[in-house]
Structure formats: structure tokens, C-alpha cells
């Protein structure tokens, strides 16, 4: 009797967990794995992958999302953050970086909105140079100070109040890779997949 009760308890506990997994992960996995990558989406290049790993290392995902919400849900469309994102956009993403916070803006199409390498480098050096009121951390360790720049160094021009005297500030390989990744974040190609319907009843 005790054994049967224990068995039912064990089974019930197991089943409730696995059912949830099956419904939320297992079945969607089967459905979504059939999706083909969109024509406009390319695999990450080596530099972009490297930059992506820096993005993860510095914890950018804790303040930035990478998912554009559909029409009628939030103001993503009105802010020209790109067309609504669909599952197909993420087939090459591992780990996913969808994000859950927008302390800073969504970055899914930041490369389309802001393609300037110089802007990104200066912004990473200290965001408040180009973005007043920003609370983003500075990333000076993605840069180094040198007496003079080598021929293929990327020098960044800083305001006089911040620029170190008698030295130039040069982006490191990491800084350039991160920028390459960010500029590559461009998902404006078209897709045939219909985005999720999340609009509430109000029309815009």
C-alpha cells in the first residue's frame, strides 16, 4: 500500500515536470527545427563570433534585448527598431541572446540603425560621450593607450576633457570584434514567416 502511494506520488511528480518540458520545450523544438534559415541571414563570421563572445562576457544581455516586438505591441515599430523578429532569425544563435531587460535599446538591428564603427568604439569607451544620461558601463579595457599608433591600429578620437595627454587611444582586437558583431546585427532582410500575434485589442 505504502509502495503504491509512493509510486503514485513519484509518478505524479515526474509527469508534471516532464509534461511541462514536453509542451514548452520538446514539441516546440520539433516544430522549430524544421525551419530553414532565411535567405538574407548569414552565419556569423569568425570576427563576429568572437565579438559575440565578448558581448556575453561583459554581460550586455542584462540590459539589452535582441527581439523586436510586433505591430500593436509596444512601440518597437514606431521606433524603427526593425520588422518583428521571427524564430527563423535565430537559427544560428547559440546561446540565444534574446534578453529580458531594456535598460538600453533593443539591439537586433543596431547595425542598420548605427553602422559607424567610430561611434560604437567611442560609445564603448565611455557611453556618456555620445549618449547623455546613459547608465551603460564604460569599457576602457577594450582599448589601450599608446604613444603612437601602428599603421593598422584603429585610433579613436576622444573629447579633449577625456583624452589622455600625449597618447593615442587605440581599440584592441576585442573592442573591434565586439563592434564588428554589433554592426553585423542587421536583420532587415525579409522573411516569409509570419510573426507571432501578440497585439492586444487596441489598434494603432
Amino acid at each position, binding site marked *: 500500500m505504502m509502495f503504491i502511494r509512493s509510486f503514485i506520488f513519484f509518478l505524479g511528480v515526474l509527469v508534471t515536470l516532464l509534461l511541462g*518540458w514536453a509542451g514548452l*520545450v520538446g514539441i516546440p523544438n520539433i516544430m522549430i527545427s524544421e525551419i530553414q534559415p532565411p535567405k538574407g541571414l548569414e552565419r556569423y563570421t569568425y570576427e563576429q563570433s568572437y565579438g559575440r563572445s565578448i558581448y556575453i562576457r561583459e554581460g550586455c544581455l542584462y540590459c539589452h534585448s535582441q527581439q523586436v516586438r510586433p505591430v500593436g505591441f509596444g512601440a518597437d515599430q514606431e521606433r524603427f527598431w526593425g520588422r518583428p523578429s521571427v524564430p527563423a532569425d535565430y537559427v544560428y*544563435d547559440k546561446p540565444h541572446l534574446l534578453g529580458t531587460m531594456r535598460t538600453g535599446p533593443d539591439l537586433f538591428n543596431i547595425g542598420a540603425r548605427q553602422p559607424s564603427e567610430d561611434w560604437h568604439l567611442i560609445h564603448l569607451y565611455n557611453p556618456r560621450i555620445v549618449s547623455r544620461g546613459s547608465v551603460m558601463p564604460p569599457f576602457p579595457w577594450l582599448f589601450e593607450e599608446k604613444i603612437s599608433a601602428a599603421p593598422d591600429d584603429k585610433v579613436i578620437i576622444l573629447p579633449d576633457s577625456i583624452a589622455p595627454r600625449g597618447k593615442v587611444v587605440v581599440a584592441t582586437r576585442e573592442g573591434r570584434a565586439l563592434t564588428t558583431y554589433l554592426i553585423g546585427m542587421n536583420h532587415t532582410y525579409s522573411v516569409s514567416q509570419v510573426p507571432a500575434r501578440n497585439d492586444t485589442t487596441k489598434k494603432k
Partner: protein
Amino acid sequence: MAAQTTTKEQFISFASHTAEEVSEKQQRVEIDDSVTSPVVLYFLTGIGWLVFGSVAGLIAAVKFNLPDWLGGTPFLTFGRIRPVHLNAVVYGWASLAGAGMIVWMTSRLCRAKIEKTWALYVSAVLWNIGVAFGIVSLFFGYNQGMEWLEFPKPAGGLIALGFLFFAYSIAQTFRKRQVEHVYVSLWYILASLIWFPLLYVVANLGIYHGVTEAAMNWWFGHNVLTVWFTPIGLAGAYYFIPKVIGRPIYSYYLGLLGFWAFALFYNWNGIHHLVGGPLPTWMVTVSIVASVMMFVPVMAVAVNHHLTTIGHFRMLKFSPTLRFVVFGSMSYTAVSFQGSIESLRSFSEVAHFTHYTIGHAHLGVYGFVSMILFGAIYYIMPRIAKWEWPYPKLIKLHFWMSAVGIALYVVALSMGGWIQGTMMNDPSLPFIASVNATKPYLWVRSLGGTMMLLGHLAFAYQFLLIIYRSGPTRYVPAWFELRQTTEENRPV
């Protein structure tokens, strides 16, 4: 003045009247003795992570308002110190303190001495090494890139292994139980032992990518609450509320319904973290439905906990455990109702991606789980250390710092987050407006966090005092005052 220790014999002789009572008391004393060392180890290391994690959290919080503070070093950048905070308080503090509470409670509820104590020591060591290794890795930037799953696989592996040793000891103790009925707290405990290892292993299989990985991420993230932390909190509340008040749970059979409804619905909540996201609509809808259905088990628990407490609120004046645990159980009702509403699309449209969700998360893990764990530790420690808490004033300080701290925290982030979301959704305003609007609220949040940290320091200090049996001597453990019943403390 030398500190006197109450010996076991003195302890027992205060209480004994008949030979029968001696043996029952003796049994309880022996059971408590058997768990003392492992429980103290779990609590001590857990509290260590609590203090560490609170400092890390405060650093992260202040950086919202002063982003250039400590900005020159990569080790303390927000993007690293933030996951350090989360993992330290989740896998360090709450998990270890919860494990300690589970060990003591299982032993008591089974009326059996704890089995395989060696396994608990192994577990505590592996677990702490795993967390420490993971935290150090995060400081150096090694991050798996998913929230709640940041620890590199070796750290996660050590934690999972440590958990298995812990589960082994609990399961063996349960097998040797001397009771006919398995109390409700044990249902939650036993369920978590089956659920948590499975959850952790399935999440770390590494077979996912793309948006399904996101779905797995949040199935996992929410399920850590479902299968580990909520059971810990509810097991604590279901035991300590009736025990301290001296009344059985209001409607025990309702608790049975509540348990299975909880198991069924809560497992499907995960995708409410991705409302509006690039996932099939049906997945999001299913999770929203499940989140709303949580009203059923949460109401069952609320009826049980609150109606057991009603009429006995004056006990809150006397019992620190009850204060913390009742605060925790009220927070559970509040955070669950809030969560159900928050998952609705119209609400999520504003609150998602904002500080509102952070406030909600802290109401759950701190206001609910941690407050109950504090209450549990205040109850358990005197009974195993054979020493009373030396400074009740420090307990009061801890309580008020934590309670006011979390209240400020949650209110500030809820208001600030709602405003942030509203402004974010107003395209006539530049994005930076939503950031600027939150700044005053973020200061209040840091104030709340500072208060919580101070409370934790008072708590940690007194915890050290009690395990070293320092501070003012007590001849008579507090609860034996019952023996001298006066008009004032007559049982209700």
C-alpha cells in the same frame, strides 16, 4: 564572566515530568543532535553567500545611478557583478539555507535521526566549491550566456553532484521514518528532490539552440522557482506557522489539492518571460493561461496560511520566527497574484523589459523565500545549538531592515518600472527619457538594498555568536517560559 553552557542533562531536566515525557523529549533531542553539524554547515556557508551576494547586489544597484563608479576594472563591471549577485544568492544563500532547513525538518517530521550524515558533508563541500568556482569564473567573464544558467558546466556539475548526495541522505532518512502520516511540508520537500536534479540535467543537455533554447532557458529559470524555491518556502510556512502558533493548519485537505494544482500548473509558466517574443503564439498563450491558473493553488495556500494565523497576530510580537514566516507567506500571496496579472499581455506590454520584473523577482526570492528561511533559522538554531539567540534586539533590527528594505525595493522598482515601460512605449519620447525617469527610483532601490545588507550583517554576526555560544548566558531557553504560564502568556 565565563559563558555557561546548558548541558543536555540540564536541558532535559527543566522539562521532564514523567518518564514518558522524558523519552519523547529525549528522542527529539537526539534527532536534533544528529542534524546539528550538517545543518550548521549549510546555514553557515549559506549566510556567508548571503553577505557576499548582498554586497555584490548593492554594487550592481549603485552602478545604475553612478555608472562610472568602479568603472575602470572589468571584474566589477555591471555585466559581471550582476550575475555574480544572482548566482550567489540563488545557488549560494537560498539553496544552502534551504537545504539546511530541509535536513532539520525532514528529521523532525520523520521522527528519525538523519541518515548518511557523511553524504551531507560531501554535499555541502561539493556545493560550496561549485558555487565558488562558478562565481570566480563569472568575475573573469566566463558566462554561459543564459540567465540563471551562467555558471560554466564544471561548476554546475559540482552543484548537481552535491545535490544528489544531499537528496540521498534525505531519501534514506525518509525511508527510516517512524511516522504514519507524511506531513504536507514533506510532500514539497520530496517532490523537489525528484524535480530539481532532473530539471538541472535536462537544461544542461546542450541540445538546444535558437529560440527553442530561449524557451528552454525560461522553462528552466522559472522552474527553479517551481521545483526548488517555492517548495522550500511553502514547506517552511506550512510547518512553522502552525507550529509556533500552536494550531493545526486551517484546512489540511485543501493543502492536498493545492499541492497537485501547484505541481500541474506551475510547470507551464516559463514562457511568460517571453511575452511578445519571437515564439509561436500558442506557447506564450499556454504559459499565460498556466500563470493565471496559479490562482487556484495560491488561494489554497493563502487560505491555509492566513486563516491559520488570523486571530493570533499578537503572537507576532513575541516570535521572531513567526514574524519572518508570516511576512514571507503574505509575500507569497502577493507575488503570486502579481505574477498572474503580470503575465497578461496587456500588462506585459508595459512591464516587460523594465525594472518592474526585477521588483517582482525580488519580492519572490527575498520577500517570500528568504524571509521564510530567516524565520526557519531563528527557530532551528537554538534547538540544535542548545543556546538561545543572545540579542533579541539584533533580531528586531534584522527584521525591520529586511522588511522595510524589501518594501522600498519592490515599491520603487514597480513604480519606476511601470513609468519606464509607459515611456518606452510612447514613440514621441526618445528612448533615453525612459532611462532618465527611472533614476530616482533606482536610488530608492539602492537604499532598500543597503538596509537589507545591514540586516544581513546583524543576522550573520548573531549567527556566529550563537554557534560559538557567546553573548549573554541564558539559563532557560526561551520557549521553556511556557512552563510558567502567566496571565500574559496564557496559550490562546
